[in-house]
């Protein structure tokens, strides 16, 4: 007799605006259905903004996400600038793109490493985390911070690119061009990694369109969609960016975890090229529309209307919408859409037909902010028996699957 189990994966990590619990229906080891339930800890950031002015809200926006903090603050700033019709100096636009690319490099290397950790490839995990330190150092050199950079201002940025920072970023580009290849080769040429990630968590292109998949999740399904290409902004208006899709590089697209992995690997190289071009083309001029924040605040207080900002964050399009009301110092309305908001809706499709041992890997494959899958409760409907799988046990199952595969492949 086939037993059906119901497995909730959650609760989610507090660093996420929309934490997610995935309820999996399983028969034996196989996932037959899935339902996603976010909302374990909604922080009410949009509500909080009603009591804060647009400058104070920059710091709220930065705290929507701990990894792509800069993406959120820039999408937010662009929305406010759109509403208040504030023109950002071109040099500031370039510096924004520079930090966005640095953030993409660190976010992608982090994810690539965590995916290796999930399948038990610890050497690649440690190598990746060691490589990532270089970009964290560069971010610290530019902004003084490693996570929440506090570099955004409405109408510009707060820190300029000095010759020292220029040298630091160029060093970083040279470093990764030399050091990233061994990592790329170690992972891509490993047959066990290929066997472990190929055809797991498949999302076909048509479903990626229907479910509004964005970023590397969509591109891993062959979708040529990148905001930097389709709607170029800031430095990308001058420097063309081409969407990276697996079929262009490998002749085929499977829409699986391996394709999402490859897209991110290649995007690290793309970001290195972009960083160099941004530095080469960095125009001279001011870095902020307002020399003093209070002048900007006065302009925003007099503004009335709706504003929209959308940029390509490491995980996909990050959308912010705001509304300002004349005479009111605080934000009248604010809506944040983190990329995981869109991509997590594709999870149920990705889960179906896969094994429990792949569940953690599939969740990770869209690079959600919930890297901490805390625990799963297994309910046996036939006997009403409950068991709890901890995160460690889930990880162990994933690693055991890799070890078994390795043994069978004689590696």
């Amino acid at each position, binding site marked *: 007799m086939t037993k059906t189990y119901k497995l909730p994966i959650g609760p989610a990590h507090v660093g996420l605006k929309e934490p997610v619990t995935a309820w999996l229906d399983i028969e034996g080891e196989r996932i037959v259905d899935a339902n996603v*339930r976010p909302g374990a800890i909604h922080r009410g950031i949009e509500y909080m903004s009603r009591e804060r002015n647009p400058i104070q809200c920059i710091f709220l926006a930065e705290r929507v996400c701990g990894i792509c903090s800069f993406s959120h603050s820039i999408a937010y700033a662009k929305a406010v600038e759109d509403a208040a019709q504030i023109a950002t100096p071109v040099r500031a636009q370039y510096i924004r793109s520079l930090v966005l690319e640095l953030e993409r490099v660190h976010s992608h290397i982090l994810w690539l490493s965590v995916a290796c950790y999930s399948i038990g490839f610890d050497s690649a995990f440690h190598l990746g985390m060691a490589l990532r330190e270089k970009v964290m150092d560069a971010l610290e050199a530019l902004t003084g911070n490693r996570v929440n950079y506090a570099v955004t201002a409405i109408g510009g940025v707060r820190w300029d690119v000095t010759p020292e920072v220029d040298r630091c970023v160029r060093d970083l580009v040279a470093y990764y061009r030399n050091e990233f290849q061994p990592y790329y080769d170690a992972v891509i040429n490993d047959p066990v990694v290929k066997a472990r990630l190929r055809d797991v968590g498949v999302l076909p292109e048509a479903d990626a369109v229907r479910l509004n998949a964005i970023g590397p999740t969509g591109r891993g399904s062959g979708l040529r969609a990148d905001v930097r290409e389709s709607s170029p902004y800031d430095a990308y208006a001058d420097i063309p960016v081409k969407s990276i899709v697996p079929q262009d590089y490998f002749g085929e697209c499977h829409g699986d975890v391996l394709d999402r992995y490859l897209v991110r690997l290649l995007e690290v190289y793309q970001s290195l090229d972009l960083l160099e071009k941004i530095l080469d083309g960095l125009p001279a001029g001011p870095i902020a529309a307002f020399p003093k924040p209070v002048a900007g605040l006065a302009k925003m207080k007099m503004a009335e209307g709706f504003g929209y900002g959308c940029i390509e964050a490491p995980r996909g399009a990050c959308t912010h919408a705001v*509304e300002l009301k004349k005479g009111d110092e605080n934000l009248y309305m604010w*809506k944040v859409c983190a990329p995981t908001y869109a991509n997590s809706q594709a999870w149920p499709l990705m889960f179906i037909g896969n094994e429990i041992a792949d569940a953690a890997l599939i969740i990770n494959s869209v690079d959600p902010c919930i890297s901490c899958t805390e625990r799963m409760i297994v309910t046996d409907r036939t006997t009403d028996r409950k068991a709890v799988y901890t995160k460690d046990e889930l990880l162990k199952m994933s690693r055991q699957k890799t070890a078994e595969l390795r043994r069978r492949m004689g590696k």
Partner: protein
Amino acid sequence: METYVGTDKKVTVKTAAEIEAMLKERLGDALTASEIREYKTGVCQLPAPHLLVTVTREKFLDLVDALGELDFPHFHVMSGNDDGETIRQISHFSLFRREGRGKEVTVTVTVHIPKNDLVIPSLHSRIPGIDYSEREMFEMLGIDHDGQPNKDLVFLPDGWDRSILPWRRDEKGPNGKNAPDGTPLVRELN
């Protein structure tokens, strides 16, 4: 109406002005406001077109279907606001995001819904990825989407009193109300 995706679907790329003209012709007076913004960036001052339209509730589906004839409307998110007598639902779409450099047109669709009849047709059968946003609008503002198969909570915690609508500014909002454990939902700053 099924979803807009088809294997033989041909995309017709248009500019924001052409889309606006098409919508005006199709919808007539039902299109109560429209505006085109071009936010320019970069040294080359490349414009990013943004079409903002306001449509009556009755013609909301017709408008989205008209967009769906051109390309699958990529849905970003819905925002909304309590404007007093009405609730505003703002849907953020993009067209032509797969059609190459600089082709994307952002389309923002606003609908004003009276508070005494807070219902609007759902887009779920056309754009399945709209699920979270419609449920979010329902739990936060009370907008009921006719045709949405799942009206469960999405971002609010289990056990939430559904008569409390967190984004409302009227008596249905969270001001002065308590959570199930007795703590106030809204605390004064300072």
